[in-house]
């Protein structure tokens, strides 16, 4: 079983602050996805990164895939209350996505 560790596990910040969430593994993945999950709902895909070193930006969110395709980061600039949720990374190995342990983010107005 491929293990994806996310850090921090919990994060509580004020509106307008910046933050970075990390997703680390000792395994190499074909691609990596980031999801956001709100309470009582299923995860919703934010982005897919495929190439080592790839950087993708989605408005205030910046995603980076590590050069060795073993790790990834999600950076949020000027966080807003609407960013609150559980952030999950998922690495593709073979025909299965392995989900990370999750980072629960709370943005306080």
């Amino acid at each position, binding site marked *: *079983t491929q293990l*994806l560790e*996310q850090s921090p596990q919990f994060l509580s910040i004020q509106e307008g602050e910046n933050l970075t969430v990390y997703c680390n593994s000792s395994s190499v993945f*074909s*691609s990596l*996805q980031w999801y956001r999950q709100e309470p*009582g*709902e*299923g*995860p*919703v*895909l934010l982005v*897919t990164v*495929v190439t080592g070193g790839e950087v993708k930006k989605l408005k205030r969110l910046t995603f980076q895939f590590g050069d060795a395709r073993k790790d990834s980061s999600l950076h949020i600039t000027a966080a807003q209350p609407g960013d609150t949720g559980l952030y*999950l990374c*998922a690495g*593709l190995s*073979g*025909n*299965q*996505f392995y*989900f*990370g*342990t*999750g980072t629960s983010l709370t943005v306080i107005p």
Partner: protein
Amino acid sequence: EAGVAQSPRYKIIEKRQSVAFWCNPISGHATLYWYQQILGQGPKLLIQFQNNGVVDDSQLPKDRFSAERLKGVDSTLKIQPAKLEDSAVYLCASSLLPTGWGEKLFFGSGTQLSVL
């Protein structure tokens, strides 16, 4: 387009009882997944179907869990008998193509199971 439909939303049962969950994927999606998400953890794949065939069920506790996808459309996941450690959210997801293509997964809202 309609999303992935799951029912029921909540279920409370006593240990050793049986329970079944239902999922209707997005129309045209050939691949269907059942995930188990224990509180505070990421989802764990239980079983993956491609049309009505099983692609991966290596993490399905087959002594108590079973799943079927008749006619390659909707699916049911059953637990019999339930244990306390089965308390979790059961998520159904679907994708147009198999996971190996790096496909986007569309998740339902899940069924929250509490085993007392």
